[in-house]
């Protein structure tokens, strides 16, 4: 019995070893995470600076681009945002980010009509967890899509640096 086990186990080990040798022989390199970019509020001087910071958050920490495209695209789940700066006021944009349930059409297929659940997350809550400054920066970026930036650098409340990408420690 013991010999049979050893023999069988050796066969299995040889097989595993052969697999490891083949896998090792395939040229491959580790996949490194992209570098995180930090920007400081103190360095933001103009409205354009805020919008650029907002763009980074849009494609980074905010994860907006996970569902929204700028141009119309069939592969995205949520509405494209081209021209959103002209369509919505600043307050509406801000409210869409921080209170996505505020303006939502009722579902008239049920009687009485009931509110839809918003698929849009509240971006100030975890796991996204944007700060007030970051939310304003995203609003500024969205305003560049067909509108005019109305967020002023003086509105940014804290002079402390803000991370452009998600940090686990922020949660």
């Amino acid at each position: 019995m013991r010999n049979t086990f050893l023999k069988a186990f050796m066969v299995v080990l040889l097989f595993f070893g052969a697999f490891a040798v083949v896998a090792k022989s395939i040229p491959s390199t580790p996949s490194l995470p992209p570098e995180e970019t930090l920007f400081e509020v103190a360095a933001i001087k103009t409205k354009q600076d805020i919008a650029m910071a907002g763009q980074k958050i849009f494609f980074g920490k905010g994860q907006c681009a996970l569902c929204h495209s700028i141009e119309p695209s069939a592969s995205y789940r949520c509405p494209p945002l081209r021209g959103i700066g002209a369509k919505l006021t600043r307050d509406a944009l801000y409210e869409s980010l921080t209170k996505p349930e505020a303006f939502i059409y009722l579902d008239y297929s049920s009687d009485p009509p009931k509110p839809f659940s918003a698929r849009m997350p509240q971006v100030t809550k975890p796991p996204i967890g944007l700060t007030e400054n970051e939310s304003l920066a995203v609003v500024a970026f969205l305003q560049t899509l067909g509108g005019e930036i109305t967020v002023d650098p003086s509105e940014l409340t804290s002079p402390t640096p803000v991370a452009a990408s998600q940090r686990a420690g922020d949660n």
Partner: protein
Amino acid sequence: MSVEQQVVAIAAAYREFPLLGSRNMIWVTAQLHLLFAGFVLGVPIFAWICELVGVITKDLRFDWLAREFTKLLIAAFGTTATFGGVLLFLLVALYPTFFNVLTEIFYPTYFLYAGLFFAETTALYLYWYGWDAMAHRKGLHLTIGFLLNLTGTLLMMIANSWATFQMSPVFVSESAGVWRKAWQVVNNFTWMPLNIHRLLANVVLGGFICAAYAGFRYLAGITATDRERYDWMGHVGNFVGIFAMLPLPFAGYWLTREIYMYNQQMGITLMGGFLSWLFILQAILIGVLFLGVNYYLWLGLAYRTQGAERYRKFILAMLVTLAVCIGVWMIPHSLVASMEEAVKMGGTHHPLLGVLGLMSAKMTAANIMILVTFISFLLYWRANREETARWATAGRIAQVVIFAAAIAYVIWLGVYGYFVPVIVRIGFSVNQVLAVLATLAVVTVMTTLMLRNATLVGTMQWGRMPARSQYVLILMAADVILLMSMMGYARSASRTHWHIYGMMRDSSPDAFSPSLGDASLVIVACSVIFCLIVSFIFWVASLPGRAPVRAILAAQEAAGREAEEKVAAQHKTVGKIAAQLEAAKDAEVST
């Protein structure tokens, strides 16, 4: 938050595990937990099917087999729970922030999980300890077995929701209630395809581990009865493994399709990015599995089945077809080439092989391999029988036509796929799968009807298989374990540097994904540890009813002596009778 504060916060979010590192520790523990979970979910499904077959066919061997494997569950169940507990401790200790986020999202499911765990444990104890007590109430026993499998499957589905949420998170509406929110996150994009994929894979694992165990016991068997019994057991395990394996590529394809639908970038990372060569390794392992399964069936035709001679001539053609299909499946789309090589080749895609590296060709190869394996099984199924149905000849011709049509259709769609847009080509894969599944279903029903009242032209000679057939069974189980470990890594690595894809970034020093070669070492380590622990469980489970080997040998010797004495006594008696007859004849002649 200042940069310094952020650094402090990140340090608090992670803790380092000495020597091995936090990520490796979590990786190995999670993989072992997954393999054991697969084992304790797959084996009861396997045992329950065997018990059911035993009740229907009234063949007591199936009941023995089901019981033999349920016995292992008790030890394996504890081991699975232990690894689950260790994993939980490690997550809380090493990744506290991440675990807090998961808890915030999933805490209602924790209570459900705990409740189901209790229910599963109760069902398992009743199923195992009530085996004899319910020997005459098989309906009740089978119901408890069903509940055991149901609760186990639901447990798996809850755990899958945590893992799949990390891959394909959904945003929850703030206004929804606690349970509705929980359902929204549970029912994410990749949840159901992973449930189906894991369910099937667990049955495959259960079947092949059973076959490997039987193979080992066959090799170590002392008596002819042992070899007969374990040869049959290996055959049943292999049979269950094959049948669960046949739809597995389709389930895998569905899962990958959902990943692409959810996030194209993740799909590209998986199939076309740094993980793409992992799928070449997967093709090799699946190729080995298909070859092993078929080889075992062919050995069964050659050694075990009387009357199978008429089918042996097809083996070479099937072997060649399988080899070609495996070759196609293994071809990568793009090659790792130097600049000079790429210039000579006209790009990183080889002009001929690059074409065969596309999914169109791979799906075609996979489907044909499934059909060939099914043909092997079909030949084995009717090797020692002669159909007596009046329409048997017409039925056989119809089956040949169905197979030919299915293969032609699969190849045609594969070739035509190169001339249509990608989205149409993806749709073709569904048609290929449906054609193969329909063939499997129709031919199975036809064969069942044709073999009704069939006459036996030979017997199944259990216990005559050569030793290499049993090593094939052992290797197939090892192959499945390796495959599961590797694909576990693939699924996890597809998230790249995210704890929760696109939502929560991994900011630890382990946020990178290792090279394929380095990853393979951890994958092999997981597989070896699992094999060792499973062997230990088998050994422990065999202790209570184990008669000492010497005693068996002595009994055998005694039985042999007794038989010899009996034969000698019979010879003596026959000799006496012959002498008496001779004497009587002589007396008659003289009178």
